[in-house]
Each structure stands twice: as C-alpha cells, then as structure tokens.
C-alpha cells in the first residue's frame, strides 16, 4: 500500500477574494499500485484541487499526503519538484504537449529533467509503440488528432516509470470511441506497470475500466463503486 498514493484527512483552503473556500474537506484516499481509480464530479467540485495536492503542486492546509511512501508535508518546493520528476506522472487535458517537439521528443524531454530516472526509464520509442504511436513518432502535436495527442501524453507521463499517475480530464474534447480507447489504454498501462492511477473526469460514461469510482462534491470525496 505504501508504494502507491495515500491522502489522509487532507483539507485545502483557497482564497476567493475576501473569502476563503474549502476546496478539499477531510479527504481520505488510498490507491494501491496497479489500481485505477476515477474521481467524478461537476466543475468546481474540487477534482483538480485533489490532483494538485496529490501531485505535490499545492501544499494542503492540513492532512497528510504520501507518494510511494514519501510524506510530502515537510518537503521544500525543490524537493516536491524532485518528487514530481521521480515518482509522479501527469496526464493533462488534451495532452498539453509542447508544440515544438515531435512525439518522440515529448517523451525524451522528461528524461532530460530527470537524470536519476534514466536507469529505470522506459525507451521512448518502445513506449510510443506500446500506445500505438510508433508510426507517428516524428510528428508534432499539430500533426496529430486529439486522441493521438492524448496517447502521446499518456506515454510521456509513463516514460520515467512513475509510481503514481495523475490524469486530468483525459477525454475532454474527444468523441466516445476515442474516449474509450484512451481510458482502456490508461487501465492497461496501470495494471501492466503497477502504477497507482487517479483519473479525474466529469464523464460518467468512461468508468467501466476503473477499479474504483469516487464522487466529489463541495470538496468532499465519497466512494460510489
């Protein structure tokens, strides 16, 4: 269990003008290696805040976050960046790829940041082949479809062999067929590579491949299946 992701009693207060909003309210979540968890909820429910806290991007107001057993609480900003490099993979909306880089270079870039991961890193071309993008490894994002960009984004998140995969609305702007393909790919990679995956989405039609589904409303997390 300690190799995955765990949040315990996590709250996050954020400023909103003169007021303070409770973006996360005593959230508890544990995701084991190889487990694929989905979090659904409407916009503003706190899904992205949960990803930000779990991904060492934002320090919670209270509670404890552990990534692969490492407690993020006492870590400095530089150390949290190190945790993101070495232990966490992010899949962003629409892939969020860098326009200047080919698909293969999108995967090589994280390896430039992360020298320590090079020994455990996966071969970018092999990984692109695994996600069905071998023939388009030299194409840039504007030469790829939305589904293809998302596949490259998933491969990029996995190239450093992270222990935790955080996926932010991966099917936004994709049609049903491509959405299902992307989520199936995520589920397959999660199990094959023993990574603890958290996917936030507002799309209830793509949850069939998930091991557990949580619902989020007003910063509170509850398991639905």
């Amino acid at each position, binding site marked *: 269990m300690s190799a995955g992701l765990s949040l315990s009693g996590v709250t996050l207060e954020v400023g909103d003008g003169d007021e303070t909003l409770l973006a996360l309210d005593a959230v508890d979540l544990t995701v084991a290696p190889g487990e694929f968890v989905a979090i659904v909820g409407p916009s503003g429910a706190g899904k*992205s805040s949960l990803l930000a806290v779990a991904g060492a991007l934002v320090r919670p107001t209270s509670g404890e976050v552990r990534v692969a057993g490492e407690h993020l609480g006492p870590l400095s900003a530089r150390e949290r960046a190190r*945790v993101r490099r070495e232990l966490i993979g992010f899949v962003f909306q629409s892939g969020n790829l860098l326009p200047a880089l080919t698909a293969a270079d999108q995967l090589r870039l994280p390896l430039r940041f992360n020298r320590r991961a090079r020994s455990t890193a996966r071969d970018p071309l092999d990984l692109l082949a695994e996600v069905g993008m071998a023939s388009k490894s030299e194409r840039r994002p504007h030469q790829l479809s939305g589904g293809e960009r998302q596949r490259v984004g998933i491969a990029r998140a996995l190239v450093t062999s992270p222990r935790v995969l955080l996926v932010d609305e991966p099917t936004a702007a994709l049609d049903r067929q491509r959405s299902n393909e992307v989520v199936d790919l995520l589920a397959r990679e999660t199990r094959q590579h023993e990574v603890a995956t958290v996917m936030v989405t507002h799309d209830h039609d793509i949850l069939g491949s998930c091991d557990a589904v949580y619902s989020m409303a007003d910063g509170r997390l509850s398991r639905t299946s």
Partner: protein
Amino acid sequence: MFLGLRELRFARMRFALMGAVVALIAVLMVLLSGLSVGLVNDGVSGLKKLPVTSFAFEHGVQTDAAFSRSVVDLAAVDAWRKQPGVAEAAPFGNTLVNAHGDRGTTIDLALFGVQPGTFVAPRPAEGEGLGTTDNGIVVSQTAIDKGLRIGDTVTVDRLGTRLVVVGSLAGQHTFGHVDVAYIALPLWQRIKAGAAPGDPMPAHALKEATAVAVRSEPGVTVDLAAGDRAAGTTSLSLHDSFGASPGYTAETSTLTLIQGFLYAIAALVVGAFFTVWTIQRKQEIAVMRAMGAPTRYLLGDGLGQAFVLLLVSTGVGVAVGTGAGSLVGGGAPFALTGSAVGLAAVLLLVLGLAGAAAAISRIAAVDPVTALGANR
C-alpha cells in the same frame, strides 16, 4: 538545450525576425565603431604617432583648445629639459592653414613646426627629412593619397608662402581631420605670426611655439606638476592632449552616447522579445514545471536559446557590417579594427543576454498548478 534548439527550429520565422533586428543593430554597431575609430584617427593620429609622453602648454590655457590657443616661450623648453625623468624636450608648433597645390588643388594642412634633428622631427618613409631646404615640408601619406607629390609646391593662402614637399610619412598622420605637414620651426613661426615672405617678423614670434614636447625616460613617470611650476606651463599627458584637438571631445562623446543608446536598445529589444516569448509559453512552462522540471534547467535552456540567437545574429550582423564598412570610400573617416569590432560584438552579446535573462527569469514565477484543469 534540448528544448531551446528545437524551439529555434520550430518557430524559425519568429526567431529569424528577431535575429534580423539584432543583426541590424550589430551592423549599426560595426559601422559606428568604424566611424568612431576613423574619427579618432582623423582627429589625433598625427599626435598618437609622436614619440611624446606629454605636452607642456601655456600656463592656464583652455585645455580643450590648447593646440590652437597656447603660446609658450622657448625658454620653457630648457626648463623642461632639466626636469628629473625627462629624456628629451623640444619646441612644438601647431597651426592649421589653407593652401593650394601646383595644379590648383586646394589642400588644408596641419603644420607641425619642429626643429630638425630633435626627437619630434619626422622620419620620412620616402624623400628627405626637414633641414635640406628652408621651406621643405614632410607630409602625411594621406596627403599623397589625395594627389600631392614629392617635389610639388604648396602655397599657403593669403600669405603666399611657398612650401616644397620634400618627403612623405608612412601611414595616416592627421590632426583635427587635416593632413599633417611637418615644417621647420622658424618657417612655422613666420606662418603662425602671419608674416608673408619678405615681411618683417615680430621679435617675440621668433621665441615662441605652441607647446613643449616632452619625452620621459623609459619607465619613468615625470612629475608634470613640478615641471609646470619650474617652466610656468600647464601640462597634459599625450592621451589627455587628444582632447585639445579640434572637435575631438565632442565627436568622441557624441559617438559614445550613440553607441551607449544602441547597446541599451539592443538589451531592451531582446528583453522585450523574450518577455513576449516567455508569456506565450506560459502554459508550456507550467506543464514542464508540473512534470518536475528544475527551474535551473528551464532558465539554462532559455538562456542557451537566447545565446544561440544572439551569437548567430550578431555574427551575421558583424559580417555584413564589416562587408559594408569595406565599401566605405577612403575619404570618409572610417576604420575597422578587430579589437573595436570584437568589443562591440561582445558588448552586444552580453547586454542582449542581460535583457534576455531579465525576461526569462519570469519562468521561475510560473505556477505549475496552472497546468491543471480549470486553471488552464
């Protein structure tokens, strides 16, 4: 510089436009440095080539016009010869005249009046030195380039004094943008006094020169203040005496000001470009920071990109500027030297990088959380 080089290739038109602006600034810098060196040469090359360490002018003379206003008594020469550390001292006359040649060509000359045989007497590359005839002059190569020949007669306007070109010096010897002609001191004194051939000379004019030219012993620094007290003069080192050349200070300070503005413009232009470039890439930077990219890596990559852009565009600009400079006609005060062009290129590179660094430092302020969901 994994990302920086790929962005240079990907956004080649944007970088080419920016590079073109930097290259144009580099062209201007090269041309200005050529003009600057050329004007300095035109103004004081005749002084620079004198084997002199300092000049002693009339006491209290206005130092920015000392060569035209100063009058010293020849007795001051002896006083300077006796000063500790002084190897040699000799009278030095300086006056500008309008003249015309045998073939009706007009020519302006800076007459350097010296006593033949003294350390300031010219050593001609061609022809003879001073002393062989009473009215001989030894002229700069630049005067020869303008059509004057050894053996030509040059007549000083208004006075009608006829001077014969007996020798020429190697290289450029000019003063105040006018070709230098060395002349024997007695004839210089007549011309300075405005005495036409056959006119009587004022007695005092025969005992006067513009300044005392002083050469110190090798490795010795002469106490100029002590010498001035003994000789009743006001001394300037050779370098400081350049400011006494007509227009020298105004020209050099104007060009320095223009160059300074150009360097500042270069830094601002490069800084503005990279500010816009960084703002445009804010989302990409947020994504990379979310992926754990060290700030140092991102800053280094951005600075490397700026360095490549500046290096290539400055190199192109320097090449074009040097090519354009070689086309500048011989009549213009223009001279390209490797050191001046190199300094201009390095300054452009360094200040451009400083501008880029100020802009790229914004990378550190990009919040990685903006890579996520609703923050996008």
